[in-house]
């Protein structure tokens, strides 16, 4: 794998952010997905939704202005932008499940070429499973972007023919952004959108568990 040139997490998030259109309602999962907010191109107004009851998530508060009860789904302190609203949980999930949010960006353990997503549980039964809001997002939001490292830290395959971990949803992922490439999920399987600079399709295919259509 010496011939692979990996983007940083921030660069993957920056790449994904280019695909968030002006005026979109977007839910960001915790962790790597949450980085996307910082890279939305200037001039676009995007309303970020946080499952805990906030539409219009703003940046981290300036020191001294923090509100301990104004947090996002990652439990980080945030602010609101103009046009924001607060609401309770059943309304928040009505937005998610009811098809009102345009795009959700989710982390993933595994993504399969048929759009399967696994991001809530592994095969390890020692630790309690924790599903959060991921299953509601994948059934309700029409466009699901997965953002992830292309392979596990141990080199394990994460993009594959079928997920081996318990599923979050079936046929839900539209596009995958990794540190090596961007792939669309199509009826034929993964289709290459672009390679991260310095990589070849052959090298990326070698660390991918399903065929990448060029």
């Amino acid at each position: 794998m010496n011939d692979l040139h990996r983007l940083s997490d921030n660069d993957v998030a920056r790449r994904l952010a280019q695909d968030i259109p002006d005026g979109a309602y977007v839910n960001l999962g915790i962790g790597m997905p949450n980085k996307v907010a910082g890279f939305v191109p200037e001039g676009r107004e995007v309303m970020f939704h946080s499952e805990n009851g906030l539409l219009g998530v703003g940046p981290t508060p300036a020191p001294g202005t923090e509100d301990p009860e104004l947090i996002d789904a990652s439990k980080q302190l945030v602010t609101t932008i103009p046009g924001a609203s607060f609401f309770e949980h059943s309304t928040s999930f009505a937005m998610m499940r009811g098809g009102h949010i345009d795009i959700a960006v989710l982390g993933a353990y595994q993504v399969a070429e048929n759009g399967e997503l696994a991001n809530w549980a592994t095969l390890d039964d020692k630790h309690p499973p924790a599903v959060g809001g991921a299953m509601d997002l994948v059934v309700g939001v029409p466009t699901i972007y997965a953002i992830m490292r292309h392979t596990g830290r141990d080199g394990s395959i994460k993009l594959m023919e079928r997920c081996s971990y318990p599923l979050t949803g079936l046929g839900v992922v539209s596009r995958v952004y990794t540190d090596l490439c961007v792939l669309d999920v199509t009826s034929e399987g993964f289709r290459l959108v672009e390679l991260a600079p310095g990589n070849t399709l052959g090298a990326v295919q070698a660390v991918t568990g399903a065929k990448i259509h060029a």
Partner: protein
Amino acid sequence: MALVPEGYTDIAGFALMVAVATIAMPCGEPIGKGPRMIDKRVATLAEAIAPVEEGAVVMIGGFGTSGIPFGLIDALASSGVGGLTIVSNNAGAGEEGISVLLRNGQVARVICSYPRTPGSIWFERRYAAGEVELEVVPQGTLAERIRAAGAGLGGFFTPTGYGTKLAEGKETRQIDGRGQVLEMALHADIALIRAEEADRWGNLSFHATARNFNPVMATAAKHTIVEARRVLDGPMDPAAVITPGIFVGSVTEYGVRP
């Protein structure tokens, strides 16, 4: 084996988001230097109503005389679009509101809980002549079917109506020792909503009992059209928003109060 998806544990990068974001989104100011990007305001009621197509399912907020989007209904009447299915609590009274649509012959079907308000002469006339179909739904079931549509649920079991004529032909079962009826989500193409205040993001608040069916209907249509008594210049207080703008398609100011 990492238990957490890649990146989940790495929230240090959040600081970078913040650094960038505080530049791109200064607090309290519109984002960017260009024109305001989310702006749901539409200049006229006629323009607002233009997306309503022949045969559309149209939800209309209001209860009795309160919270009815009279301006939008009049614009819909003027548009002449027909074959409509109207979902509303009542079926119009006198010579205004939904009655105008019925008088004009624009309505093929009504789904409501209470079509017999005193003065519902146009509904009664069309109904007696067999010119309009009627589906009567218990009021709470009507609200809940609309909510289910907006919330992405397929249907629900309710005790309301069990053992009555309104449950005939519907699936029933015993849950916790009570008879319950399966009721399905009720979707619409269009919702016509009356609000008190709105902002350019489509956030809405309502006045007194003019709230009624308006918030729930706003969630259940493909396109939600709002007349607001006042459209604010700035944003609404986030805690005062009753209907978040995500549910709203367009907003037109219509200052008339019935």
